[in-house]
């Protein structure tokens, strides 16, 4: 009997015949049993010493900061080289008259090359008249997802945004009523803009919300500042949804905590807490329970962006696996994660359809689209199922 064999037995690393062999020897040999007890004792001490490992790892991983990558090869969202090289598409439209302006400089250092031979009167279908070069330092982020390309009026500059476009400091972005978008900022923070949301990216870690709803995941660092409804929201790190609607404004906190400063008053809003900012009054902090929402939103963006079936499943699967590994989730989500591990898109769609009370109408619609499409392709589905 070797020391290694006894260690492997202790660690459950032996085959069944090997294990049975050792157990027979243990029955006959008291010295071997004593040796095993010593090993078990040490193993127990080590396991006790390392019992906090998952929490330690989670804490360390949650603090990691991953910067935007320098792109040296084609990335799917980097196909427009504008994002990497600081080139952006400029579309100039005179706001009031609809007449095209040959060239307009909106940022210091912006150099536009005019192409005045075109004109356009319809703001919904602006035309490209120029390309411009921006200093690299003005690019502070990138549009990483959008349910459709969209145009937005930025001062007198109408700009078309599509996946991969850079976001410059001071940019005004307004998502149309039928488009949602996601942005990655250079400091590692992420923004998701709901439909009909108007924001100004005032600085690398500062944002002004004019209207609509914004989900922010702020990377650790100096507080990320959101200005909304005369209030200032400061987020050192975490996940927050801020909404500014005509009749209602609120801050909802999903991860970490934020300070909401309004006049002389400050409220600390912690995980799964919300505070109202309606009618010029800072409300009391209260709990809320809508944790599937952010996930539904992510799902919806992917679906509506036309992501391929397999990609969608892998994205959502990876998301849930990460969630399961790092945070622990309730049994329903656990079951879902396991289902998704089998790469069954149908399971995802059914889940979303059967959990309607938690989800936005858009997410439910997205699920229904998938179910309808799968129902219309019975042969393909059965083939997929048989192949698993």
């Amino acid at each position, binding site marked *: 009997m070797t*020391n290694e064999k006894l260690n492997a037995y202790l660690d459950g690393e032996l085959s069944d015949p090997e294990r049975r062999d050792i157990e027979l020897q243990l029955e006959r040999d008291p010295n071997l049993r004593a040796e095993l007890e010593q090993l078990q004792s040490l193993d127990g001490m080590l396991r006790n010493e390392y019992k906090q490992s998952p929490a330690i790892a989670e804490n360390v991983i949650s603090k*990691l900061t991953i910067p935007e990558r320098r792109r*040296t090869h084609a*990335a799917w969202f980097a196909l427009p080289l504008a994002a990497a090289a600081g080139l952006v598409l400029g579309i100039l439209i005179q706001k009031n008259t609809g007449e095209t302006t040959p060239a307009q400089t909106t940022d210091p250092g912006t150099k536009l090359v005019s192409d005045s031979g075109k004109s356009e009167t319809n703001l919904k279908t602006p035309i490209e008249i120029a390309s411009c070069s921006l200093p690299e330092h003005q690019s502070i982020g990138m549009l990483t997802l959008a349910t459709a390309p969209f145009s937005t009026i930025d001062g007198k500059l109408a700009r078309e945004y599509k996946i991969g476009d850079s976001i410059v400091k001071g940019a005004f972005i307004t998502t149309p009523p039928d488009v949602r978008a996601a942005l990655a900022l250079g400091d590692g923070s992420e923004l998701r803009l709901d439909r009909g949301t108007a924001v100004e990216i005032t600085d690398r870690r500062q944002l002004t919300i004019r209207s609509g709803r914004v989900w922010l995941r702020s990377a650790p660092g100096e507080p990320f500042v959101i200005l909304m409804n005369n209030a200032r929201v400061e987020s050192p790190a975490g996940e927050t949804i801020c909404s500014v609607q005509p009749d209602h404004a609120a801050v909802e906190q999903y991860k970490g905590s934020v300070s909401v400063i309004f006049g002389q008053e400050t409220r600390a809003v912690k995980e799964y807490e919300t505070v109202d900012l309606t009618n010029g009054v800072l409300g009391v902090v209260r709990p809320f329970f809508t944790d599937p929402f952010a996930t539904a939103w992510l799902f919806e963006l992917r679906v509506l962006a036309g992501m391929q079936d397999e990609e969608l499943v*892998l994205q959502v699967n990876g998301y849930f696996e990460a969630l399961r590994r790092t945070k622990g989730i309730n049994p329903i989500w656990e079951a879902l994660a396991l289902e998704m*591990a089998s790469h069954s898109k149908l399971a995802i769609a059914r889940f979303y359809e059967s959990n309607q009370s938690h989800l936005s109408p858009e997410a439910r619609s997205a699920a229904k689209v998938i179910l309808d499409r799968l129902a219309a392709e019975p042969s393909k589905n059965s083939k997929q199922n048989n192949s698993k």
Partner: protein
Amino acid sequence: MPGSTTEALTQRAVRGDRAAFEALLALHGRTMLAVARARSSNSTDAEEILQESSVRTWQNIGKINDTSRFVAWACSIVDHVARDRSRRERVREAKPLDDVSDRERGPSEAGRNAIVNAVSSLPVPLREVIELFYFGNLTYREIADIIGKSVPTVNLRLAEARTQLRLQLKDSPVAP
């Protein structure tokens, strides 16, 4: 988790999907941290090594040869970063060789308990398997893949590490 999930996430990360890379870190960061801990003198060092390694991994993920081996590849970067860091510290601090040797072996810190001190004083190859087995919660096969050795070698090192730990703890109040 199916093995293909890591591979698929790696493929997405190679194409520039940062969310996929973050999912990879969430899935395998614990293993990477275990490797960093094996070469660190304290937890702050380990965290800094993991941070630097994560950025290097992300910046260089386009160079990965086999997307099915992300964990081993990422852990090799952690190992390189830890070695680089150790070399830099050696130059900066201009320590005598004896001290450097002690540092690499992981000197114990005041206030840490006997078992932690005993693990810290193990030679790096033995400490590495202890960290991967207990901190990383990995099997012999998974450890073997990461350190690029055979399963019997992992078995041998873990047995040797435990033997040394028992010897070191023999006279301590927590002796097994």
